[in-house]
């Protein structure tokens, strides 16, 4: 038997998964998506893998770190801050 293609409904849900996970959809669209997910194991599996991938990104930090500022660079920044504050008052 030919494997079935994702249905139109799956494609529509697929396009909204990030907004769904970010709670940026209205209640009725959420209900609609949840109804579909409850009946479509491949979509819910995809949603979970997307959620895990996002969670890995949330905690991701590049291994590269900046070099410490030199005393002169720090003094330059402090002087700029003090000047800005001085002009404000």
């Amino acid at each position, binding site marked *: 038997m030919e494997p079935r293609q994702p249905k139109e409904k799956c494609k529509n849900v697929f396009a909204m998964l990030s907004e769904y996970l970010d709670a940026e959809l209205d209640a009725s669209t959420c209900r609609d998506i949840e109804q579909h997910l409850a009946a479509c194991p*491949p979509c819910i599996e995809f949603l979970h893998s*997307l959620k895990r991938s996002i969670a890995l990104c949330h*905690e991701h930090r590049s291994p*590269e770190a900046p070099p410490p500022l030199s005393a002169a660079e720090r003094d330059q920044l402090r002087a700029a801050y003090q000047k800005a504050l001085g002009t*404000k008052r």
Partner: protein
Amino acid sequence: MAAGHAEEVALARDLIAGQPEAFDRFVEVFQSKIFQYAYMMCGQREDAEEVAQDTLLKVFENFDQLREPERVRPWVFRIARNACLMKRRKSVFAPAQELSIEDFLPRSDQHDGARRLEIPDRSALPDDLALRGELRSVIDRAIQDLPEIYRAVILLRDIEELTTEEAADVLDVNQEVIKTRLHRARLAIRQKLEEYLRTARGAGAGGQ
């Protein structure tokens, strides 16, 4: 070491109020954040160092213009983003590339669950430091491989955790554009992780 939103706001509020004790911590927090963002955006360590330095200088020169300390994060990133754009003008121009959502639709065989492959839960990872390190490099590469317009969005939304509204403000686009680009960037990263795990598992002894 990492600062949360509340600490950043408190530091900004102290600096606006003229309490210089907050200065060193503010520099520490934001130098690291700006450097990470610039490194991922520019791809060069030297550029990232210069962007971090230029951005911090602009931030302090204009500190009197930060009216709402709650918005310190998007305010700083807007300055950092402009500094990155200046760097880009000096380097090779990369044309804007679009990612199509169709490219990330699960293939029919995957959609049937025939090739089920789980991206690990991060809470299950601390026991597996090697896998954690490998996944980190996969994510790092996946982000760097994204076209620039998507990379900027995922860095601001998922790494720096700005809101959709704040990211739209930093990048000068509307919120719908942020949502669309974020979704495509996430799909691309998910796909890279899946490809990596499939190859790694295929190469492993026996797999499961």
